[in-house]
């Protein structure tokens, strides 16, 4: 006998067919510590061999699960130990980038993340060389993603790294100018980066992670939007309850897929990331959820409060549906990947300053935002510094993924295509912060980091 009733079955089918319910990613995290060598050729061979061996069946397994359960699994991805840790003894980090990109192509994954460095408190000599290689690494590979953690609540903000990342972002944009600065879409600057994040471009497999793990990111802004349409005009208590119930259902699917993938691949289940990740597709927008709550357009006064409610309710609903919750877990607000955000940014309703406020109450940060091509490296560093301060003081992850649109200015847009969407070039504050960034050094950790 059927355990569920027809109404529930149709509800699930509608979520998948009409409301864009999907599992956004199955990400296999792979430790590369045993690939370390003082010979870069040997190290990169070991990296390639290990990834292609462990992830050999990742894509086909994802496709099988997709077919059997009838639930789309949009991406299959790999995250690896931050490469700055693996390449430190032998240098030649660019050769690691090439080996990783080859491994991504052999396994057929959508992206491979972990061309990363952790330098919240300071640089090692290897880190400095590594970070300088990022523009070339992103310009000469297809599937590689990079991230740099420049701040933590425990260590404070490494302002030397913030300054360098402003320059690295500009160089990456210039090196990929023929592709609209696409390299910058694969580069994230973090505060309090998490070690088990399955989402790109910021995924890496942290030093405290197991040998190999399956992490799953769920999605479903469209499902939440449709659920809220059914409670129009009702109080915020009802809104929060509706989001919680929907998030629970979405997360249960993620948990089931994670367990199934883990069993079939013989790899331990890590975490489910409870994130609402939009896509540019119609009906799959986080901005439209906020508008459904009663805002004329995303960016209006009230937007931050609406997002705070949404983010909190998603976590409360999702946490009971999964045995292990981790990653970023919250609502994402990547401008170019969200039809509602694109529209709001285009007509000026949504500004960089409002987005910054929104990042105080959600994961992750200033994400997929195009800025004018002539924005200085120092101004980009200033944008990063503000966002890092929000993360450090609020003990949360924040990130910056901005794309200087080479040769373009406000009113134009950059087309990335696919899930990365279209980024309208947004105005930045023109006053200089160059002297502030030039100071260098480290902003101390906040007083509430001293918890011991």
């Amino acid at each position, binding site marked *: *006998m*059927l*355990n*569920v009733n*027809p*109404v*529930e*079955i*149709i509800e*699930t*089918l509608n979520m998948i067919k009409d409301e864009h319910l999907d599992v956004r990613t199955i990400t296999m995290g792979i430790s590369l510590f045993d690939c370390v060598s003082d010979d870069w050729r040997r190290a990169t061979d070991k990296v390639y061999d290990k990834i292609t061996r462990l992830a050999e069946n990742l894509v086909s397994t994802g496709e*099988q699960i997709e*077919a*059997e*359960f*009838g*639930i789309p699994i949009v991406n299959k991805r790999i995250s690896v130990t931050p490469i700055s840790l693996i390449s430190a003894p032998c240098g030649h980090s660019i050769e690691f980038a090439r080996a990783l990109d080859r491994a991504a192509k052999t396994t057929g994954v959508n992206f491979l993340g972990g061309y990363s460095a952790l330098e919240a408190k300071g640089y090692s000599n290897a880190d400095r060389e590594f970070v300088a290689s990022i523009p070339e690494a992103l310009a000469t590979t297809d599937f590689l993603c990079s991230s740099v953690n420049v701040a933590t609540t425990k260590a404070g903000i490494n302002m030397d790294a913030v300054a360098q990342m402003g320059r690295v972002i500009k160089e990456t944009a210039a090196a990929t100018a023929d592709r609209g600065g696409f390299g910058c879409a694969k580069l994230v600057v973090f505060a309090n980066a998490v070690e088990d994040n399955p989402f790109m471009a910021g995924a890496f497999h942290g030093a405290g992670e197991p040998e190999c793990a399956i992490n799953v990111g769920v999605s479903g802004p469209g499902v939440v939007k449709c659920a809220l349409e059914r409670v129009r005009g009702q109080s915020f208590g009802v809104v929060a309850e509706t989001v919680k119930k929907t998030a629970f*259902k979405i997360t*249960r*699917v993620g*948990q*089931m897929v994670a367990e199934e993938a883990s069993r079939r691949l013989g790899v331990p289940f890590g975490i489910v990331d409870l994130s609402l990740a939009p896509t540019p597709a119609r009906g799959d927008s986080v901005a439209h959820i906020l508008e459904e709550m009663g805002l004329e357009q995303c960016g209006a006064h009230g937007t931050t409060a609406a997002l705070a409610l949404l983010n909190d309710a998603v976590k409360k609903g999702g946490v009971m549906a999964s045995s292990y919750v981790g990653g970023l877990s919250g609502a994402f607000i990547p401008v170019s990947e969200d039809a509602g955000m694109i529209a709001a940014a285009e007509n000026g309703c949504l500004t960089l300053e409002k987005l910054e406020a929104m990042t105080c109450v959600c994961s992750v940060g200033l994400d997929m935002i195009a800025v004018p091509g002539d924005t200085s490296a120092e101004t980009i560093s200033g944008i990063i510094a503000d966002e890092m301060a929000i993360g450090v003081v609020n003990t949360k992850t924040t990130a910056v993924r901005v794309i200087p649109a080479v040769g373009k200015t406000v009113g134009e847009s950059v087309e990335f295509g696919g899930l990365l969407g279209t980024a309208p070039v947004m105005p930045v504050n023109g006053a200089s912060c160059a002297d502030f960034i030039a100071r260098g050094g480290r902003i101390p950790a906040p007083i509430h980091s001293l918890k011991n």
Partner: protein
Amino acid sequence: MKAVVTVVGKDKTGIIARVSGFLYENNINILDISQTIMQDIFTMITLVDTTESRLDLAQLQSGLENVGRELGVSISIQREDLFNSMHRI
């Protein structure tokens, strides 16, 4: 393996016959069947056991899609676990 076959669309004669015929041809046992009209739309939900079938779920899905095209309805087959996971604690 237990799976749920869902047929949704405009009602007409022969839907149940054609779908159950396809299941029979592919050695699939029907464990439970319910049919209703939901919001003016014909809905048939069938719990089946695919253990004896030579085809996997992806092949069955593709076969059922062809049947659905003939009948002008939408048919899907999915493992029962999906629905249990979402709606039962």
